């Protein structure tokens, strides 16, 4: 199992990019009780048989590492949700894309900590390659909801390639300010 939920999500977004997705949507909806995550891509997708194999920890397609016999990305997710009363659903269509819906149960004592969402968001944004990634992040408490959206293409247009220390630092500051606003807007108005 990954140390934090952020680690788990980072791993899954990378799957989408390795499936040659042009656009990935990442939804992060947090409440006191749960973290709902949706990762939707328009990558190469999987057939029903491939999808079944992908959830088996002792299967890897062998393309990246010829002699490797394990593939742990999805199995780590399944292990996490199945031991903590969470849920997940994965749908995929060959040639169309894949969508993963996850509900992490934050009330279970066995659920790993959410982890650092700021570094999760700036790091998925800065994966190498030409793709767009849209992150929709929201936080809901007492029937009130705050949210923000970041779009990789927009940020790249402003910051240039998201790989130098200068652009990554600015990106991190930007995400930090969005995150702080999300959580502090509660204390300032109440």
């Amino acid at each position, binding site marked *: 199992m990954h140390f934090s939920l952020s680690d788990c999500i980072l791993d899954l977004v990378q799957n989408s990019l390795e499936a040659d997705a042009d656009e990935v949507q990442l939804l992060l909806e947090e409440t006191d009780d749960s973290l709902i995550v949706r990762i939707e891509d328009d990558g190469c997708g999987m057939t029903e048989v491939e999808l079944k194999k992908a959830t088996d920890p002792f299967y890897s397609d062998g393309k990246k590492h010829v002699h490797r016999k394990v593939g742990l990305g999805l199995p780590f997710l399944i292990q996490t949700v199945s031991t903590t009363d969470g849920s997940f659903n994965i749908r995929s269509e060959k040639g169309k894309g894949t969508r993963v819906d996850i509900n992490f149960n934050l009330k279970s004592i066995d659920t790993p900590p959410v982890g650092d969402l700021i570094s999760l968001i700036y790091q998925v944004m800065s994966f190498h390659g030409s793709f767009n990634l849209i992150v929709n992040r929201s936080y809901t408490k007492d029937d009130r909801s705050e949210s923000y959206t970041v779009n990789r293409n927009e940020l790249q247009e402003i910051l240039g390639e998201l790989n130098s220390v200068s652009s990554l630092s600015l990106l991190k500051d930007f995400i930090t300010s969005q995150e*702080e606003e999300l959580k502090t807007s509660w204390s300032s108005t109440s």
Partner: protein
Amino acid sequence: MSKMTLEDLRKLRETKKQEAAQRDSDGKDSLIIVGMGTCGIAAGAKDVLDVMLDELKKAGNDNVIIRQAGCMGLCHVEPTIEVRTPGMPDTIYGKVDAKVAKDIVNIHIIDRKLVNEHVYDKPAADIIK
């Protein structure tokens, strides 16, 4: 910090660009590749990247490029990072935690010496494009 708009970000970027142009940045163009496979992430690569970014920013090395790669085939010594610094041999460091990450920035990239205890390999040409 108040919430930044995209316009604020654009202005900040321009200011930083001008500052960087005035600074002498010759020979600071290193490339760092962080192994972000399932194995790397499980061992803490996400935090290592975060620490490296903060440390490089603190040291004013704005031109260093940080890239994320998949597994480099050294799962047993994750987190791994490859460092390519002009005038230094390309090096793969393993078992990198926050302290080692800082050492790599200050000793390898700035002082141009190897962090000997954590050198694990030189890169395999077929793994990294």
